[in-house]
C-alpha cells in the first residue's frame, strides 16, 4: 500500500504572533506586523523596515543554556517545534527514534550571528585577519546551518534522517516536501518539518538594499508590503519559523490523531535563467504546480485556494500570476490567491513553512486570509487576490507556491482528502 504523509500538528513563531492561534487571528483580521527596524540601528540603510518578532526565548520555554547556544532563528524553530508537538500529541516515545526524522529549511542560517561576531572579531571591519580569540563559544555551529535540524533532533530525540535544506526562499516548502518524501519512501514514520529564519541583520539588509529588492516605504511601514498592488516597491524583510509534524497516515489514523491534511504533492524546478531574474511567462513554476497536482492526483479544478509567493516585487507578482494561469487555466480566475507576506513580510527560507501553516489553518477554519494593503490592483495582475479582508470559504485542497534566488520554483499541494475530512 502506498505510504502517505499527513500533517498532525503545527507551530508558528511569526511577526506579531508567537503561536499558531495568535498568528491566525492576526492574518484573518488582516493586520500587518511590519514596522521600523528595532533589531539594529538601520540609519544609513535604504530599507529601514521589517516584520519583526517580539521574542523572549526563555519566556517561551527555552532554557537559558539553549538560548545562549542557539542563534535566534534556531530559537524560533525550537519554540515552534514545542507547539507543533503539543498540537499533534504524537507519542514520540512509542516510535523508534531511528524512524523519527527532521527536515528543516533556512536560506541564510545564522547570518545574524555571523554578522554580529564578525563586527567584534574584525574590530568593526578594520582587520581582515580577524582575532580568533574573540570568537564566541558556538561560532563553529553558526558557520553552517546544519545544526538547525540537529538542535531540533536533539530536542525531540530523533535519530533518523536529519537534514537542513537550503534552497533560498523556497527552503520552507522544499523542507516539508522532502519530509513527506521521507515518509512515503519508508525512511521515517514521523518527521518534524519546517523552516526558520532571522535575517534582519545589517549584512542581509545591506545586500538587498544593493539590488533594491526591498521596500523603502520607511515612513509608512504598515503599508509597505503590497503584493499585487500597483504601488508596491519591493518586499519587506521578515523573520520567524513554522514547524509541522508529519506522520505516516495509517499510523496516525491508528493512534486516533487529528489528521489535518495530506502533503499530497511536491515539486520544484530550477528556472535555469538567472539568479535573481524571472522570465515573465513562468513556465518552470507552472511545471512545478502541474507536477505537484499530478502527484496529488488532484484535477486543477479541485484547488480551493492558492497561497501565493506574493513577495511584492513587480517581477515576482507578474511572473507568478502568469505561472498560476498557465498551470490552472480558467480555474485560476475562480480561485482565491493571497499573499500573507503582505502581513508578516518575507522571511526568506522560513516563509514557505509559515505559509503552509497558514494553509492548514485555512482548511481548519474555512477562512482564506487576505492580501493586506491591496487597494490599487496592478492591471497586469488580474486574479482574485482577496484584497484587505479575509473571506469565508471551504478549503479542502491548497496549492502553495514559492520562488527564490537561484531560480528555484516550488509547489506543494495539501489535500484534506475524503478520508482526512471524515
Amino acid at each position, binding site marked *: 500500500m502506498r505510504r502517505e504523509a499527513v500533517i498532525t500538528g503545527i507551530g508558528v513563531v511569526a511577526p506579531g504572533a508567537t503561536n499558531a492561534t495568535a498568528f491566525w487571528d492576526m492574518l484573518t483580521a488582516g493586520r500587518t506586523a511590519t514596522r521600523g527596524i528595532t533589531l539594529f540601528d538601520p540609519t544609513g*540603510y*535604504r530599507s529601514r523596515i521589517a516584520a519583526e518578532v517580539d521574542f523572549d526565548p526563555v519566556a517561551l520555554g527555552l532554557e537559558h543554556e539553549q538560548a545562549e547556544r542557539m542563534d535566534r532563528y534556531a530559537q524560533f524553530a525550537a519554540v515552534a517545534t514545542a507547539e507543533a508537538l503539543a498540537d499533534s500529541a504524537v507519542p514520540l516515545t512509542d516510535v523508534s527514534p531511528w524512524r523519527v526524522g527532521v527536515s528543516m529549511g533556512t536560506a*541564510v*542560517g545564522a547570518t545574524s550571528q*555571523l554578522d554580529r561576531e*564578525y563586527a567584534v572579531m*574584525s574590530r*568593526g*571591519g*578594520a582587520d*581582515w585577519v580577524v*582575532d580568533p580569540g574573540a570568537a564566541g*563559544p558556538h*561560532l*563553529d*555551529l553558526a*558557520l*553552517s*546551518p*546544519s*545544526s538547525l*535540524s*540537529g538542535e531540533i533532533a*536533539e530536542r525531540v530525540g*530523533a*535519530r*533518523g*534522517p*536529519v*537534514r*537542513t*535544506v*537550503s*534552497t*533560498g526562499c523556497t527552503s520552507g516548502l*522544499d523542507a516539508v516536501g*522532502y519530509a513527506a*518524501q*521521507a515518509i512515503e519512501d519508508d525512511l521515517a514514520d514521523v518527521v518534524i518539518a519546517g523552516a526558520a529564519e532571522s535575517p534582519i541583520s*545589517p*549584512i542581509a539588509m*545591506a*545586500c*538587498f*538594499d*544593493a*539590488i533594491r529588492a526591498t521596500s523603502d516605504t520607511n515612513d509608512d511601514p504598515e503599508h509597505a508590503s503590497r503584493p499585487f498592488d500597483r504601488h508596491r516597491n519591493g518586499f519587506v524583510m521578515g523573520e520567524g519559523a513554522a514547524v509541522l509534524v508529519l506522520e505516516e497516515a495509517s499510523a496516525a489514523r491508528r493512534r486516533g490523531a487529528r489528521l489535518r491534511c495530506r502533503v499530497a504533492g511536491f515539486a*520544484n*524546478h*530550477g528556472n535555469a*535563467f*538567472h*539568479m*535573481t531574474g524571472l522570465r515573465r511567462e513562468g513556465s518552470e513554476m507552472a*511545471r512545478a504546480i502541474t507536477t505537484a497536482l499530478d502527484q496529488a492526483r488532484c484535477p486543477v479544478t479541485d484547488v480551493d485556494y492558492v497561497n501565493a509567493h506574493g513577495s511584492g516585487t513587480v517581477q515576482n507578482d507578474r511572473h507568478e500570476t502568469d505561472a498560476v494561469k498557465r498551470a490552472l487555466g480558467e480555474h485560476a480566475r475562480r480561485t482565491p490567491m493571497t499573499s500573507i507576506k503582505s502581513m508578516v513580510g518575507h522571511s526568506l527560507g522560513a516563509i514557505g513553512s509559515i505559509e503552509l501553516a497558514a494553509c492548514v489553518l485555512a482548511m481548519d477554519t474555512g477562512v482564506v486570509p487576505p492580501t493586506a494593503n491591496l487597494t490599487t490592483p496592478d492591471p497586469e495582475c488580474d486574479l482574485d487576490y482577496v484584497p484587505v479582508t479575509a473571506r469565508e470559504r471551504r478549503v479542502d485542497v491548497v496549492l502553495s507556491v514559492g520562488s*527564490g*534566488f*537561484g*531560480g*528555484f520554483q516550488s509547489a506543494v499541494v495539501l489535500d484534506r482528502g475524503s478520508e482526512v475530512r471524515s
Partner: protein
Amino acid sequence: MNLVITGLGTVSPAGTGTHDYWAALVEGRSLIAPLSDFDTDGFPVRLGGRVRGFDPLDHLDGRYVVQTDAFTWFAMVAAEEALEDSGFDVTADPYATGVLICSGAGGAEFGQRELTALYGSGPSHVGPYQSIAWFYAASTGQVSIRNQLKGMCGVLVTDEPGMLDALGQAEQALRRGGSAMLVGASESAIGAPYSLACQAVSGTLTDGDDPESVYLPFTERTVGYVPAEGAAAALVEDQELARARGARVRAVVAGQASTFGSVGGHDPGGEGLLHAALGAMRRAGVTPDEVDVVFADALGMPKADADEAAALRQLFPGGVAVTAPKTGFGRAHAGAGALDVAAAVLSLEHQVIPPTPRVPDPPAGLDLVVRVARPARLRTALVLSRGMGGGNSAVVLTSPHHV
C-alpha cells in the same frame, strides 16, 4: 530502483580533475601545507589542504567569476567534468536533469569581503552580488543556469555527509520523475580568516605545524584533523536508462541511509554511524562479508576514532579493509564526503585501495590500509561520514562489473 554514477568530477588539493585526484590518492601523496593566504600566527589552526593553482578564469566565463565565491567555482568545474564524463545529453529535455549541490559554509571568502565593506565603509558599499554569492544555494543555482538544467533542484546542508545524503535524495527525486541528477558538494572556507576562525572554534582541528605529524586518525598521536577545501560532483542516472543509452557506468549506488548523532558531537558511541551503515547495506541487499573496502570517516579525534573503529569491528566481525585517503589532504567539510565518494568510485574502477597517508601502522584490530596502495578484488565499497551538525550517513557503491 538502482542509481548509477555515469560521470564524475573533482576539484581537490591535488588539482582539477579526477585524473590528478586519483594519482595523488594512489601514491598516498601528502598535500597538507601551511596556510599562506594570510598570517595565521595566533590562529589555532595553521595547516590546511588548499586547492592550489586554481584560476577560475581557466574554466569559467568572467561574468560567473565576479558574481560567485570559490565554493561555487569548484562546484561548477566539478559539475562540468561530471557532465562531460557522463556523455549524457542534457539539452534534449532541460527538465530531465536536476541539480543538488551541497554546501557547508557558503561563499565564505566573498561574504567576508562584503562584511568588511559593510563595517569598514558602510551599508551602501555592500555589492549587488552578495545576495547571490554568499548563500548556500549559490552553487546549485549557478550550475543549473550554466548548464540549463531545470529538473529537481535542491541544496542540502548536512556538512561532511552532504554528498552521501544527496545520493539518497537523488534516488528519491528520480523515483518521482526525470532521468538524471547532477549531485555534488563543495566547500571553500579555509582561504579567508573568518571562516577558518569559525571552524577552529570546534576544537576538532589540529593546531600542529608539521604537515608530516598531523591528522593521523586511528593512532594515539592524533589531535584533530586538518581542514581542507574542494568539491566533487557526479551525474547519476537510473540504471535502466543509463544502460539503454549505452552509458559507461562507473559505479552503482546500491544503498544509502542517514541517521543522527548529536550536534557538534560526531556521533558519540558510534551507534548512529553503525545504524547508518546497516541501513545502507540492507537497502543495497549487501551482507557484511560482501563489502570489500570501507572509506572511513576518520575524524582524527581519539574518542571519535575509537567509536568508528568499534562500529567497524561490530559490523565486520570477519574484518574488512579500511582506508581514509583524506588524511593526505584534509577534511574538506561539506566537500569531504563527496571527495570520499569519488575516491571510492575510482577505487572500484582501478581495483586498488588507496592508502591512508602518513599513518605508519594499522591500529590493533583494524585492517587499515597504510603506506602503499593495495590491489584487491573490489566489488563493493562502503563510504561512511559523520557531520559536525550531527548527521551520519553511509553509502554502498558497487562495481558495475561484478553485479
